[in-house]
């Protein structure tokens, strides 16, 4: 993975000192709370219902064992012994003290981490494919491009006070696991006819109050031009995005208002002024950066391991875990292991300090000391030898990290909701528990198969409910928590927004409604259709009828 050089180290440690001084001036009464607010936000520090919340950046979801141990240490020393992995592949702490935050940032800087631009109206953490470099369907490894864009966007002086936050995602695989069509800028690394590398550029996608699927602004952008083209998009947005209403301030609103063609014209004419200037990258820049992401030292192995096969037959728990939580690897004799942070009864995405330490150790022993975070709020050990799977499973299981539910309805995305967040209208964690309890029979879960259930506690959509195969949105109705359901959303290549099922449902009935949706699916599915496929064939009506018949 990327290693800081002297420049990166200097910037991050000077940033820590800058924030230390800001906090000091604030505590001394020289910097008002109102003036501190945007500054602390740009260091990931929010004010929530009960306390401050600190969001730490995990660039494109890549974290070393050493870094994971620091994350565990911070949870233990400054928080209440746990952290929450987010849909932006970052980690949040819910209980830090303001006065401690400079020390936390200093601890992070020692392992080449920071909280820069994890909040505020600026360019946020770059997100990407959690299977980058190991996926069987990968065309080009996106990580070098992620890091190049990370550096360019870090402390960019011109784009620090945008109309609203700005999110960039990059994928390099056939199957989009990074939801690039739901980002302010989405980049797909592709080859053109001459086998040159470049990007298909999407712009103006997003969730939130106004979900929009991104539009293609450029079919093929040569990779040399990625920074100047992003800069042109950002400048047009910075100058022309709405600033009068924060709910209309994202770039998607500007792109929709102008129309993609007029927006493209504006960007291209801006770009023409400096497209061949200093931002143009050289072949050596890509080579140097790619050098940070070599294939690890794989052993030459055969696919298939007899001991693992034997245990799959003998032990149904191991078999369930293997079948659900591991995935094919491009290297013979290796598999990708998904670490479930969706143990039943635990807030989705939460991990304790002990679990983080355990994962760090397991990664060190079995997966080249590297871990990835996923936007579905799980972790990944990307390079595990098949022959080690049994040991890895036991080690994970010992720390309750082997719940065999990846991709199932219980592997849900969920925002912190009313329990923590000052924006939320309704609780999401309690609904997660309700659904977990409904589907405690794993064989039933497996029969249902892939269901991406995504849940947000308010219309800001941090839980990505619009693109859930089943989406759950918490709403406030006269002080009570109600939930609106959607079916048929999809964050991957065939990007789609879910269809609304009907009026909102009472809190206690959400689990039953999800059951009804899945009941209809099981009755109507053909061959090996997933819920999403059946929905696309039969439409929303059968689901609607069943759910509201039950409610009546």
């Amino acid at each position, binding site marked *: 993975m990327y290693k800081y*050089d002297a*420049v990166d180290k*200097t*910037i991050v440690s*000077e*940033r820590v*000192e*800058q924030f230390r*001084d*800001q906090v000091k*001036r604030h505590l001394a009464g*020289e*910097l008002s709370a109102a*003036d501190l607010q*945007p*500054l602390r936000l740009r260091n990931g520090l929010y004010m929530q219902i009960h306390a401050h919340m600190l969001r730490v950046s995990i660039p494109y979801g890549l974290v070393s064992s050493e870094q994971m141990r620091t994350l565990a240490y911070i949870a233990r020393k400054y928080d209440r012994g746990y952290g929450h992995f987010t849909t932006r592949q970052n980690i949040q702490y819910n209980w830090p003290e303001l006065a401690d935050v400079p020390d936390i940032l200093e601890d992070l800087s020692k392992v080449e981490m920071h909280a820069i631009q994890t909040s505020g*109206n600026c360019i946020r953490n770059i997100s990407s494919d959690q299977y980058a470099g190991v996926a069987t369907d990968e065309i080009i490894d996106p990580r070098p491009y992620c890091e*190049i864009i990370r*550096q*360019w966007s*870090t*402390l*960019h*002086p*011109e*784009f*620090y*006070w*945008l*109309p609203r936050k700005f999110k960039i995602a990059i994928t390099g695989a056939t199957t989009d696991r990074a939801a690039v069509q739901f980002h302010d800028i989405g980049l797909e690394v592709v080859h053109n006819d001459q086998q040159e590398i470049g990007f298909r550029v999407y712009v103006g996608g997003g969730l939130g109050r106004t979900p929009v699927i991104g539009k293609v602004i450029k079919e093929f952008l040569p990779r040399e031009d990625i*920074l100047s083209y992003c800069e042109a998009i950002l*400048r047009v947005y*910075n*100058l*022309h995005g709405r*600033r*009068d209403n924060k709910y209309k301030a994202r770039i998607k609103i500007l792109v929709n208002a102008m129309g993609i063609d007029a927006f493209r014209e*504006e960007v291209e004419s801006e770009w023409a*002024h*400096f497209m061949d*200037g*200093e*931002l143009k*990258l*050289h072949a*050596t*820049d890509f080579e*140097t950066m790619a050098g940070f992401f070599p294939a690890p030292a794989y052993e030459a192995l055969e696919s298939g391991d007899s001991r693992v096969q034997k245990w799959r037959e003998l032990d149904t728990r191991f078999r369930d875990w293997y079948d659900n939580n591991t995935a094919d690897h491009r290297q013979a004799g290796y598999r990708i292991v998904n670490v479930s942070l969706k143990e039943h009864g635990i807030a989705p995405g939460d991990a304790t300090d002990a679990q983080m330490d355990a994962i760090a150790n397991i990664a060190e022993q079995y997966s080249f000391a590297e871990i990835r975070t996923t936007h579905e709020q799980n972790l990944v050990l990307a390079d595990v030898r098949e022959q080690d799977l049994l040991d890895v499973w036991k080690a994970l299981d010992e720390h309750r990290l082997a719940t065999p539910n990846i991709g199932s309805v219980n592997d849900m995305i969920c925002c912190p909701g009313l329990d923590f967040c000052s924006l939320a209208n309704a609780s999401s964690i309690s609904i997660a528990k309700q659904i977990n309890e409904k589907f405690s029979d794993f064989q039933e879960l497996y029969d249902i198969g892939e269901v991406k259930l995504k849940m947000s506690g308010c219309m800001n959509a941090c839980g990505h409910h619009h693109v859930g195969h089943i989406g759950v949105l918490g709403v406030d109705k006269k002080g009570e928590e109600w939930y609106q359901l959607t079916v048929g959303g999809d964050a991957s290549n065939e990007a789609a927004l879910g269809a609304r099922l009907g009026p909102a449902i009472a809190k206690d009935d959400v689990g039953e409604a999800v059951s009804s949706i899945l009941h209809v699916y099981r009755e109507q599915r053909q061959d090996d259709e997933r819920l999403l496929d059946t929905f696309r064939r039969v439409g929303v009506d059968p689901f609607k009828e069943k759910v509201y018949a039950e409610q009546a």
Partner: protein
Amino acid sequence: MATNRNLKARPKATPSRIQENIRTAKAIVDQKIVANDLLHVAETEELGLSDLPNGNISVPLNIWLENKSDLISRDSVVAVQIAADEDPEDLANDFSDVEIVVLPFVTHADGRSYSHAHKLRERYGFKGQIRAIGDVKFDQLDFLTRVGCNAFELPESENLETALQAFEEFSEVYQPAADGGRLIFSKRRAIH
């Protein structure tokens, strides 16, 4: 998308413009604290050439565009404001006459003027002073300098001595900018 080509249609006194004249006793110019006598005249419906006070003033863009020769012949510094919702392109033919471009911040969170400063330096090659005024404080000075501002007027409540430290906070940068900063990758190319 030059917003204000048609001056008649130009909205006056929008929330993006300063609403009252601004004058501060001191300014920071080229990272030094200096005495200041520049008065920034706020735009009003009635404002005309004859209403302008004597002495050094900066005028709203429309006053400049309508009264260039009169303003040049005044025995004072030629300073023009470009509000956040205006476009520096409207000054493109005038840079040899204008000594100071003033960027008023109604709120520091309105980042449009950062792009204005960038364009003034990088696209139009403006060599004169770019001065940020209004809601500009310690914590904005560094990035404003990076995009091309070299003069600042802070609210009277701010301690200017303390604010000077803002220029010392970062010794490295990732992006090319008007302050001579270079793209990190071209810097690394030179080392390797």
